[in-house]
């Protein structure tokens, strides 16, 4: 796995949202324009066949990263490449189309990601009709015949553990877990090799979460898929991830191999997240709830954005932004001045 080629490269990704009030109101109240930095200089790469997970609290910018990576949202700065080809939101060249068929996304809420007015068969067939049948070599072939499309839809339904006759039903006739299976079947339809999954199980009952996660892992192995896996749930991430990036207020604060990061967290924030999960803690250790709240990204704290919640914070933390060096963005960790966080 370690010598696998890099499939997706994300470099200096940045996204600001204009959250100013309407122009007239602003002029009357003499307010300046206000911007929200949802994602601020995020870089990572994903190797073919691995699962790169991003964890972080709500509002840390995980979804925004995922949407930029798949080309649904324009980046303010930075770039995303897949096999060296740049992914741009709204690009429409022949090359862009060829790249687009390799990228798919699985969304959080399977009640919103399937068009309620479409039959399941049509939902799954849509990417096949848009891109043509998947071929090992990739690239667009002739428009598939209705018969071939139907057969492929049946295959895909079987692949995700549903019945081919389900193609005739509507999404509302299925449970949440089954709908997510349908969404997965659709995502696989045109034969992608990279799938971004934005909290794919957090809308589901705990009892079906594991089934869906296992299905995703099986499919990954079977089809050689590469995942970008977004979640705020550390147990889920531990179950899925090869490598993990921890996000806080739009920045990556720690990045590393999953096993290592879970065993020996280096950033105080990662430690805090791990402490908050009961079933991950070592024996005899109590669960500590996450202290404090994530500050507003409109007006983030100066220096290390985590300093108001960090029990190790020193003066420099309030002044200088710690850069991400060697997989961790923390002044003290970089100087080796942090106590061991692993226990």
């Amino acid at each position: 796995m370690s010598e696998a080629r890099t499939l997706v490269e994300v470099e200096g990704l940045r996204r600001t949202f204009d959250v100013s009030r309407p122009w007239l109101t602003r002029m009357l109240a003499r307010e300046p324009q206000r911007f929200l930095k949802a994602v601020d200089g995020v870089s990572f790469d994903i190797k073919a066949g691995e699962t790169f997970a991003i964890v972080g609290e709500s509002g840390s910018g995980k979804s925004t990263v995922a949407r930029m990576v798949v080309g649904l949202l324009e980046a303010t700065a930075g770039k995303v490449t897949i096999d060296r080809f740049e992914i741009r939101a709204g690009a429409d060249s022949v090359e862009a189309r060829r790249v687009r068929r390799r990228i798919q996304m699985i969304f959080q809420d399977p009640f919103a990601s399937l068009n309620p007015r479409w039959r399941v068969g049509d939902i799954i067939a849509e990417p096949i009709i848009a891109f043509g049948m998947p071929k090992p070599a990739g690239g667009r072939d002739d428009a598939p015949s209705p018969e071939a499309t139907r057969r492929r839809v049946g295959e895909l339904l079987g692949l995700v553990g549903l019945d081919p006759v389900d193609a005739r039903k509507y999404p509302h006739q299925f449970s949440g877990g089954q709908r997510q299976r349908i969404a997965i079947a659709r995502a696989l339809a045109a034969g992608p090799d990279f799938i971004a999954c934005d909290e794919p199980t957090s809308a589901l009952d705990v009892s079906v979460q594991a089934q869906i996660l296992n299905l995703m892992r099986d499919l990954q192995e079977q089809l050689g898929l590469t995942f970008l896996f977004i979640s705020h749930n550390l147990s889920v991430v531990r179950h899925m991830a090869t490598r993990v990036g921890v996000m806080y207020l739009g920045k990556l604060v720690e990045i590393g191999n999953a096993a290592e990061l879970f065993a020996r967290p280096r950033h105080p924030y990662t430690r805090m997240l791990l402490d908050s999960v009961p079933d991950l803690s070592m024996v005899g250790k109590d669960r500590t709830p996450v202290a404090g709240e994530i500050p507003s990204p409109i007006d983030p704290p100066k220096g290390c954005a985590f300093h108001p919640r960090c029990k190790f914070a020193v003066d420099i933390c309030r002044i200088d932004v710690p850069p991400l060096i060697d997989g961790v963005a923390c002044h003290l960790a970089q100087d080796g001045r942090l106590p061991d966080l692993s226990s």
Partner: protein
Amino acid sequence: MTAEPLIDTDITPRTDGTDERRGRFARLLDSDIMASFLASKLTVLAGFVTFAFLIIALFAPLIAPFNPFDPAQVFLIDARDPPIWMAGSDPRFLLGTDDQGRDMLSALFYGLRVSLLIGGLGVLLSALIGVTLGLIAGYAGGRIDALIMRIADIQLTFPAILIALLVDGVVHALLKSGGREDTAFGVMVLSIGLSFWVQYARTVRGSTLVERNKDYVHAARLIGLRSPQILWRHVLPNVLGPVLVIATINLALAVITEATLSFLGVGLPPTQPSLGTLIRIGNAYLFSGEWWIVAFPGITLAVLVIAVNMLGDWLRDALNPRLR
């Protein structure tokens, strides 16, 4: 969290899939919608009346005893005969005759046909304009949205009659033909279409704003569909429910508007009378004792409008789960 849509437009009955094999009609009979329809006797009556009027309008030439517009069948000597239950009536004319000797009943059938046709086409045109503009405004957002919605605001300040006069004037200036009769029909449909699109546009824009941020739209963008395709295939089917309600209620409104315009003489000429034209003709004889010339078209219009309106109200309530 997903916001619950204000109006639940899902007409498909909720089933566990076991009765997939049964026909659509059988499932419709089983559904909540059908249950709520049958629960109200008045709604059933309104539905029946509307249906009957539609049938009459559709088959008027077949079921009317006379063709009131065929000069060979109309004789001035029969003019102003009363309905058959009154003294001095002629058994051929069930509801009497008008000032030209035309059979009232037949004139009513044909008038209903003209009124419903103009109303229906007008509603269709306004829905077409409104839904298209609403979809574009809601999906594009920004300046395009602002522009369309300002036009809608301005539109609302023009009453239908003003628009009819305007359209009438423009059409005449363009065609330079003397006869209003040839263009009256088109002018009416166009005027109604231009008068009533705003409500569709606003409603559809609102629903589109909600739908465009749903993940199924993102999923469609992800496979490279262009905006028109997304709007047509994905968004439109999800915003049509409320449109159906507005269209039904607006049909009543359109018929009234047409009648008003015709009554005021801006609408259809006596050679091609709608219910409104018939009322205008009859109005002149109201005080000379020939009340039936105005009463029957008036009653028909009122019953039609009330029935269609009730049907629309029921549809709105049935589709809105919060009122159930």
